[in-house]
């Protein structure tokens, strides 16, 4: 009996130490951003100081610099604007397509659906060179409209895939009943299917928005003026003057820009994962 108890205790210790070690390793950079964001420069740049604690009083100087003397707020605004427009485009394109694939086109729907999912696997690093010419020819270079045009190319395929699964879970009888009551198929889609799919649509909205804030390659390639940047490129590229890194402000900016996205994404994560796992989970 004693041996079994010891074993149980051992298992618990292993369990908790695995959790502890991984949590610390994975979350550490964010703790590091937090502490750097409030440290005085003298404290930050003295090699002898214990870097884990505040050796001098915390300061708001870095935040002040960030908000008053850089384009940080502008970048946040650009990103939010692009996010909203891309969400609108994505919904307009993906909702009808997903419904059509889920309901109307029968056996072909399955194949087309998988085809669309596969286009999600095409990475920006394969397409950014030709797209940079397309953007230049259309005269969109250096404006946020370049990314507004291109971002739906990776948000639409995955959104169709997510919504398709969602629409399929709605009982067909509901629509049939509505159609017997005189609605057309399209009418049933707009007045019945969309309202009861709000949570699925919300997932797509969040997903699209987070992808817009996470994108780096296209924004770096298409946009060069500092004031038109997206937040994901502006912070790592333009908060550096020459070779001088303003680490305090840089870390504050990273934290401010990533935490809200992380919080919201986290809430919807299980749905995205269900989309990722294709059909391997049943």
């Amino acid at each position, binding site marked *: 009996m004693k041996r079994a108890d010891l074993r149980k205790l051992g298992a618990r210790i292993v369990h908790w130490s695995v959790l502890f070690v991984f949590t610390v390793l994975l*979350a550490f950079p964010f703790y590091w951003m937090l502490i750097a964001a409030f440290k005085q420069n003298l404290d930050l740049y003295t090699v002898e100081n214990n870097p884990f604690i505040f050796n001098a009083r915390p300061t708001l100087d870095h935040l002040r610099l960030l908000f008053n003397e850089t384009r940080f707020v502008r970048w946040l605004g650009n990103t939010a604007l692009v996010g909203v427009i891309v969400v609108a485009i994505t919904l307009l394109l993906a909702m009808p397509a997903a419904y059509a694939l889920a309901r109307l086109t029968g056996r072909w729907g399955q194949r087309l659906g998988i085809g669309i999912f596969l286009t999600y696997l095409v990475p920006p690093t394969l397409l950014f060179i030709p797209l940079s010419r397309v953007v230049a020819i259309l005269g969109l270079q250096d404006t946020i409209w370049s990314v507004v045009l291109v971002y739906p190319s990776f948000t639409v395929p995955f959104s169709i895939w997510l919504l398709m699964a969602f629409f399929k879970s709605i009982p067909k009888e509901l629509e049939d009943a509505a159609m017997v009551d005189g609605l057309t198929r399209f009418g049933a889609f707009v007045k019945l299917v969309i309202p009861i799919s709000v949570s699925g649509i919300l997932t797509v909205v969040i997903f699209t928005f987070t992808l817009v804030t996470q994108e780096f390659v296209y924004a770096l390639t298409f946009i060069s003026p500092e004031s038109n940047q997206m937040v994901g490129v502006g912070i790592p590229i333009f908060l550096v003057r020459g070779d001088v890194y303003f680490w305090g402000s840089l870390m504050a900016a990273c934290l401010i820009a990533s935490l809200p996205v992380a919080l919201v994404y986290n809430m919807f994560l299980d749905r995205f994962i269900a989309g990722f796992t294709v059909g391997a989970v049943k």
Partner: protein
Amino acid sequence: MAIGRPKIKSLQAAESPLLGGAMFSPAVLYIVLLIGAPFVLAIFYAFSDARIGSTTLHFVGLENFRSILQSPSFRKALQNSIVFTICAQAIVVVCSTMLSIALEKKFRGRGLLRFLILLPWVAPVSLGSIGWKWILDSIYSVITWVLVWLHFYKPYGAPMWLGQPHLAMASVILVHCWRLIPFATVVMLAGSSAIPKEIPEAAAIDGAGFWRTLFQIKIPMMLPIINVAVLFGTIFTFTDMTVVYILTAGGPFDSTQTLPSLAFATGIQGSDLAAGAAISLFLVPVLVVIAYLMLRMAHRAEVV
């Protein structure tokens, strides 16, 4: 299907092709124009002498491929892309299997813990990478501080993590792992929750110990979902340029250059669109293999 309602069924059959087509063609058109067409254009550029700023374009056959295959930078980039991807996936699979098993049981504070563990994946990758650049700084690195404090190195005697080829490569792999472990963990959690609880329990009752249950029952049953995590992880690592670009920009001396970062340096920064396009086309074989494997898995899941 609604067998008892022939009226609806005929209605559906009559209107479906037209309405269905009208509903999904805008999305398909968009995808064709912004993914299909640029892809064809990339192939076209790779066989031409396209440059930023030049308006004429000539067909040059395999010339671009010949010159990039001879360039040492390209060979290093190809090698790095493969090494980074394989190393990162190996580490990610081991770590996330452990972590997902540890997270399986419900306990108090699990939600908060999951959020902290997920942070690297849900935060924008360029911002996480810049955080690491500060952690790996040549002078103020916290890792250096700890090693000096533990007397492994004399003050100012520690290596520069991003300044020496092998350490820089290790750093890039480390950051990729840091970012992918959370993703792989949640994918595996989703998978392991689908395994019927009775099977491992029955094995335990029959006298199989923890390790035996783990290696002979749990992990084999989780294999399909581990495959999904590895396939996506491979794409995310192999085609990524953000981590490398921010941490090292391919340096020192091309030692961390990957195919995407070299394509960017050549095609955009170096204005040689043709060579850049040719380099990025080397991503395609890997993508095709992964797409094939995913299709096979999706197919098998349907049959079962």
